[in-house]
């Protein structure tokens, strides 16, 4: 395992020495007895329909993605504090924070955003969303989005805080050049900070059955993804103001229509401080530097780490801005850590159902020579006793 990580780290350092990064920090309370099951649906939906898609669009502009995914028992305030405090980012990086779980506010809180409860029971451990937003904004990234999907209702025993006291598709996803351009305009065409919570002061946030996806999930995440998908498909010149106002309006209307089912009005709130900016081109100047193993912040699980690093290598291999020779060279290097009969299983865009299976080396050859990929996201990696990769599961994002 260590050997694989070391090899991956070495190849990555030289590949992405001058790349910018989009950092995704997601906390999902998937083990809560009340909301856990719905949160699993929301997390899956969030990744397949938003995060992977944005990463695919930005990969074309030489943005690599770094995902800090916390769920289950890792949905801890301590993890949040650590990741937010230690996050290192460059001036042109993008940071997105997304929380799904319980929340609330004190009657003495003087900001409009809620406190995040995480998967724990101590009020003093709750983290105000404003603290997260302020800390992330201090990093001076190009664009910072801080979003919380939780209640903003008044909660007994919660003290005020300013800081911390401690729908199924088969096959691969395809998206058009217009959609890619629109995503790039939203994430790279704006500089600034956006903070959003799923409900206004005193309001709860709701989750219920959504016929369109034949499952229950929180209505805010559903509307965010639905509007993001529709808007990036339709609009040539998208703006955050319009996108967020559409989400706000749809969540309000949906909850209002559910009154007879015991659901009260939920109105998302947000602050947008952004200015339009030029979209940077893809300038990759690779400097031959002695390989250094990067600090591994994601100590959550090693498999997650391998998945992410493999995804980053695939980003390089499928990026047609890099020379074919380089891509082949990296691809051949990667093959040395594959077992003899290693296979790749391709998952459906919105599911974990395998829709195709192939020899891994053949797949890598095709991916290296092809122009059809925006992104290949690695979902799992299996390793045998000889520390060789025997199987990977991937999701593909293809050009239309």
């Amino acid at each position, binding site marked *: 395992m260590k050997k694989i990580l070391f090899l991956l780290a070495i190849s990555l350092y030289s590949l992405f020495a001058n790349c910018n990064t989009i950092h995704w920090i997601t906390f999902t309370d998937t083990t809560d007895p*009340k909301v856990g099951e719905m949160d699993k649906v929301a997390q899956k939906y969030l990744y397949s329909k938003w995060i992977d898609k944005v990463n695919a669009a930005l990969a074309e502009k030489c943005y690599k993605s770094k995902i800090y995914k916390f769920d289950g028992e890792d949905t801890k305030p301590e993890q949040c504090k650590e990741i937010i405090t230690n996050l290192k980012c460059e001036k042109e990086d993008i940071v997105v924070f997304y929380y799904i779980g319980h929340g609330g506010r004190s009657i003495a809180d003087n900001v409009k955003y809620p406190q995040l409860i995480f998967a724990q029971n101590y009020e003093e451990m709750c983290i105000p969303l404003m603290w997260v937003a302020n800390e992330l904004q201090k990093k001076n990234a190009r664009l910072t989005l801080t979003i919380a999907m939780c209640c903003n209702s008044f909660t007994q025993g919660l003290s005020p805080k300013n800081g911390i006291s401690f729908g199924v598709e088969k096959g691969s996803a395809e998206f058009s050049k217009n959609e890619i351009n629109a995503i790039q305009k939203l994430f790279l065409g704006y500089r600034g900070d956006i903070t959003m919570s799923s409900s206004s*002061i*005193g309001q709860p946030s709701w989750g219920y059955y959504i016929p369109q996806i034949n499952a229950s999930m929180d209505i805010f995440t559903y509307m965010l993804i639905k509007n993001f998908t529709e808007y990036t498909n339709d609009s040539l010149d998208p703006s955050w103001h319009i996108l967020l106002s559409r989400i706000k309006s749809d969540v309000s209307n949906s909850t209002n229509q559910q009154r007879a089912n015991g659901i009260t009005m939920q109105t998302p709130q947000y602050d947008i401080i952004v200015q339009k900016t030029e979209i940077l081109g893809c300038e990759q100047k690779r400097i031959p530097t002695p390989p250094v193993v990067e600090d591994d912040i994601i100590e959550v699980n090693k498999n997650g780490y391998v998945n992410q690093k493999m995804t980053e290598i695939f980003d390089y291999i499928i990026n047609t801005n890099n020379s074919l020779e380089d891509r082949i060279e990296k691809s051949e290097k990667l093959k040395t850590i594959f077992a003899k009969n290693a296979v790749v299983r391709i998952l459906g865009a919105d599911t974990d159902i395998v829709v195709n299976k192939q020899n891994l080396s053949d797949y890598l050859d095709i991916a290296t020579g092809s122009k059809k990929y925006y992104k290949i996201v690695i979902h799992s990696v299996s390793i045998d006793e000889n520390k060789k990769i025997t199987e990977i599961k991937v999701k593909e994002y293809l050009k239309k």
Partner: protein
Amino acid sequence: MKHFFIQMVCIIIMLIITSTLFSCNAKRNGFSFANDSIITKEISANNDISDSILNIMMNANRVQANLYVSSMDTIREIASKNNLNREDMGALKLSLLLSEIHETDAIVYGRFLPKVSFLFSKGKEACIIEVDFGLNQLKVILINSKLTFTIYNDILLKETVLLFPNDDFLPFLLKQQK
């Protein structure tokens, strides 16, 4: 215009029923809803609580009210009224009937922390109501079941403020709802 007229007529009918009930209350110094099941049904038209549960509540001859300070890991009782007097009991029953309450199986992304509970009992029949006014949710607890309802107006909150006037969380919520 027609819709508005119907709404006005409904409101007037509701006011007449309410004032009749209150005048009865004044005369009889407390009243039993069991004697007036038609009126109970009329008033509770906007209320999803089933007839069987309403019957337990309205027929109760003993109501115990408890006030709590809850936090995420503890629930502590801070005040209690073991046996509400007839006026308070009548007013509480009326508040429950006049509240717009809808049953829900939707999930809310906040922790349910009861601020007040009411135990309605008569003989062997009993039910408990727990209310979180922050989430505007009410749970009805019977021997074998627990049902969740959303509250859409502040009538029950106002009544609870009258029952426990020294609490500071409830008046704050009342002010917010206005």
